């Protein structure tokens, strides 16, 4: 499998990620994209700026992939890949890709959802929200490794 940076300032390519995780055994491929939206808790957002502790975020993303493969090892989940974009992102830009291939759709959906949750709980990434009033760091959660 070719290596791609898991935390990057570059535009994320969901087609590339899909091609990397699809296997001939897979009957289901989920490519989830987390996308920058124009509102948060009732106020408007004009852009998000993501920062990461890149080395640790990469390590933690790999842990999430291992954890999902191990949790779903009896359910024919074949591959999991996660990529997070950092830097200044505009509305509609993809900030996160979580891709899963599995034999069956229910396992693929469940594994993908679990992977997104674990990214949010463990990967050291922060986001600054830009609105017309200025910029502020969005309140986060204490990591749950």
């Amino acid at each position: 499998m070719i290596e791609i940076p898991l935390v990057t300032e570059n535009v994320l390519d969901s087609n590339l990620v899909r091609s990397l995780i699809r296997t001939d055994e897979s009957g289901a491929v989920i490519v989830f994209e987390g996308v920058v939206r124009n509102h948060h808790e009732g106020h408007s957002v004009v852009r998000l700026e993501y920062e990461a502790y890149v080395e640790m975020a990469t390590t933690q993303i790999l842990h999430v992939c291992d954890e999902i493969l191990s949790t779903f090892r009896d359910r024919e989940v074949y591959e999991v890949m996660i990529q997070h974009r950092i830097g200044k992102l505009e509305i509609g830009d993809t900030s996160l890709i979580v891709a899963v291939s599995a034999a069956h759709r229910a396992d693929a959906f469940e594994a993908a959802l679990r992977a997104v949750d674990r990214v949010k709980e463990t990967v050291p990434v922060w986001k600054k929200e830009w609105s017309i009033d200025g910029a502020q760091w969005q309140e986060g959660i204490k990591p749950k490794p």
Partner: protein
Amino acid sequence: MEISVQLFAGLREVMESDLLTVKLDQDIVSVASLRQALEEQYPKLKPYLSGVAIAVNEEYILSDESELSDGDSVALVPPIAGGS
């Protein structure tokens, strides 16, 4: 022992630095004593420390009794907010 501690995001902005140096008298330093030294040597950090996780060599430290070694890469991880 002298430990360098990396800062990110809001914590980096509060402290106006991405690296703090903490001096400790002991040769064996636990995560708990690092927290205490940070609080004493950088009082501005105090209101944030209870919500901060400590990472050593890119892994979260779950026990405050864990000991640090020379050359460890130590970071303060404020509440995280990845994804969309």
